[in-house]
């Protein structure tokens, strides 16, 4: 859980120790698991703690429990099917009721009338500004999409299990890139919503080391621009991906949130054992 470097995601900040090496607590086990995948371990899972700095709210706690797993030779759609099977197995979903599955484009366009991939940035800024009651004229596409998704789309989602796939390319994180039926570049990333709450995030994994290295560098450029500390490149991960990540899909599930929704808890604190940590 403790590493010499951490995730470079612009909007995920690792907790760091005050020791001489300034080690990072993992914000997810992703980098380690990918090193194992590249070493040939095969499909694998992790069930344990992950940590994120500054995330504290009704649905967030700096220390939380994550279930993350990877399936070698699977694509993201097959993995979504397995996520649903797991939710049925634990009693969170009903196999007879099934689930809904929509592309990000379909969901976004139905609710707002705007194409999230090709729509004008200024149109997105205007809607985001109106929803948030703030000036969004300087915000980038990803920020506008996040605002609109959180404030307008999430509250409109149906009850039950919903898979949202084909995310905007600007929100690819570590997912592979592809082109959708409309010709737009999209990320092979999906999220799972359980009664409107974001529960899982999954990818068909990016296996191109050069592209991965580019994304890490871009993350750091953005972090620098926001006045955040940059994160040292994870050379071991890059080396492993260069040596060869098998084709695979992976997903992470927030276990505390699953419990929250199953128990009808309004606050994550209600499902944590200790709150004074």
């Amino acid at each position: 859980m403790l590493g010499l470097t951490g995730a470079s995601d612009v909007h995920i900040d690792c907790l760091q120790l005050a020791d001489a090496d300034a080690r990072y607590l993992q914000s997810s086990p992703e980098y380690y698991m990918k090193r194992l995948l590249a070493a040939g371990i095969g499909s694998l899972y992790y069930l344990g703690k992950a940590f994120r700095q500054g995330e504290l709210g009704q649905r967030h706690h700096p220390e939380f429990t994550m279930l993350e797993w990877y399936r070698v030779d699977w694509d993201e759609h097959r993995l979504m099917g397995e996520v649903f099977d797991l939710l049925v197995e634990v009693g969170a979903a009903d196999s007879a009721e099934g689930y809904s599955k929509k592309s990000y484009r379909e969901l976004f366009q139905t609710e707002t009338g705007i194409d999230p991939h090709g729509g004008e940035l200024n149109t997105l800024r205007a809607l985001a500004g109106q929803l948030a009651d703030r000036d969004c004229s300087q915000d980038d596409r990803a920020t506008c999409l996040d605002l609109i998704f959180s404030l307008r789309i999430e509250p409109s989602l149906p009850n039950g299990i919903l898979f949202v796939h084909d995310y905007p390319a600007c929100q690819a994180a570590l997912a592979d890139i592809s082109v959708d039926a409309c010709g737009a570049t999209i990320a092979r990333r999906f999220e799972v919503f359980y009664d409107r709450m974001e529960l899982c995030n999954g990818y068909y994994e990016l296996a191109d080391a050069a592209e991965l290295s580019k994304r890490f560098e871009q993350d750091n450029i953005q972090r620098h621009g926001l006045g955040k500390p940059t994160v040292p490149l994870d050379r071991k991960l890059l080396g492993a991906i260069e040596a060869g990540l098998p084709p695979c899909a992976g997903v992470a599930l927030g276990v505390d949130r699953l419990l929250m929704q199953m128990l009808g808890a309004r606050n994550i604190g209600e499902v944590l054992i200790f709150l004074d940590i």
Partner: protein
Amino acid sequence: MATYSTNEFRSGLKIMLDGDPCSILENEFVKPGKGQAFNRVRMRNLNTGRVWERTFKSGESLEGADVMDRDMQYLYNDGEFWHFMEPESFEQHQADKATVGDTALWLCEQENCVVTLYNGAPLAVAAANHVELEIVQTDPGLKGDTAQGGTKPATLTTGAVVKVPLFLNEGEIIRVDTRTGEYLSRAKD
């Protein structure tokens, strides 16, 4: 004035927004897994009373507002202004109708209330949660109806009209919850 970051926003914190003092009612942390973190904040504009919602990026900060809640004694109304006094310093403040608003219906002389001061001047007045007031007008009650829990309107000394049980008569003193305007009980004395 100090500035406050979104992670310090708590219910009751007074901040300046668009030139108006506001009181924070609710602060919800919103963050899509891989995305920008936001704080969705509900607040009341203390000048207009309007409640509205604005979303901030987490980490943004706002200036605090020089707004204080003070326990004061309500003295009297001179026809135009309501007069209040701070019990320790005996300092007096006057507030106009716009400031006192509907709270006027619950203010009885010599009783304590809370006056909100903005830059030293009254901005809002809140009555005590429970006040005791006399019924000055109500229709005579009907004996035997009490079991059904029926109510009738009663006008109090301050002009407030509350629903009371049928057995109460003019001249009686009752306890009222000023937040809901509901009758609680007969005053015990």
